[in-house]
């Protein structure tokens, strides 16, 4: 069965420092991986996705993520954090065995960026 794990409930980082939000996955076959962000009282917003090709994927708002097949990970990164990046971040996966595009979400990681 497909699953996603986000091992940290919360990540704290100072503004200007690099940030990493971790994600590991378990699927049969090659995965399609996504990151979404959720601001308070708003719906989820798409950040980026990995389909195939280059393991480093660039997305919205300066975020990027690195796909690592051997470690089954897809960590979200940003070189310099902003206070406005503070939000709830979700990793999600679609297994290739799914032909419906059903997203399996992790439990989410709260990112807190302090000035």
């Amino acid at each position, binding site marked *: 069965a497909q699953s*996603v794990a986000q091992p940290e409930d919360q990540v704290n980082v100072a503004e200007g420092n690099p940030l990493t939000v971790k994600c590991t996955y378990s699927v049969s076959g090659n995965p*399609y991986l*996504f990151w*979404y962000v959720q601001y308070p*009282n*708003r*719906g*989820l*917003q*798409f950040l980026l*996705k990995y*389909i195939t090709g280059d393991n480093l994927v660039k997305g919205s708002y300066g975020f990027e993520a690195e796909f690592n097949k051997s470690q089954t990970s897809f960590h979200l990164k940003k070189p310099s954090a902003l206070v406005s990046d503070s939000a709830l971040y*979700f990793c*999600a996966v*679609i297994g290739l065995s*799914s*032909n*419906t*595009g*059903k*997203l399996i*979400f*992790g*439990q*989410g990681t709260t990112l807190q960026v302090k000035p």
Partner: protein
Amino acid sequence: EAGVAQSPRYKIIEKRQSVAFWCNPISGHATLYWYQQILGQGPKLLIQFQNNGVVDDSQLPKDRFSAERLKGVDSTLKIQPAKLEDSAVYLCASSSAGPYNEQFFGPGTRLTVL
């Protein structure tokens, strides 16, 4: 372009009452999803429509939940009767046809069952 619209934004009901949520997807999006997001958890897919046909409803509690997408555009999700454990945010999302396209989410409806 206009985003996914949902209403109401908030709803408080007593257990055993019924409630309905409405969703208007992005124009032209063939696929529509309803998710349930319980506090502290990631969204869980309840039902997925492709145009007006159901693609996946494997996690929909069919004894109390129902959903329809008339004419392949707007959709409604109904709960009857509601239980305390149905308290959650109900998210609607839409995407263009194809299983690996990004989904666009509405603001959600926060349901509280007392």
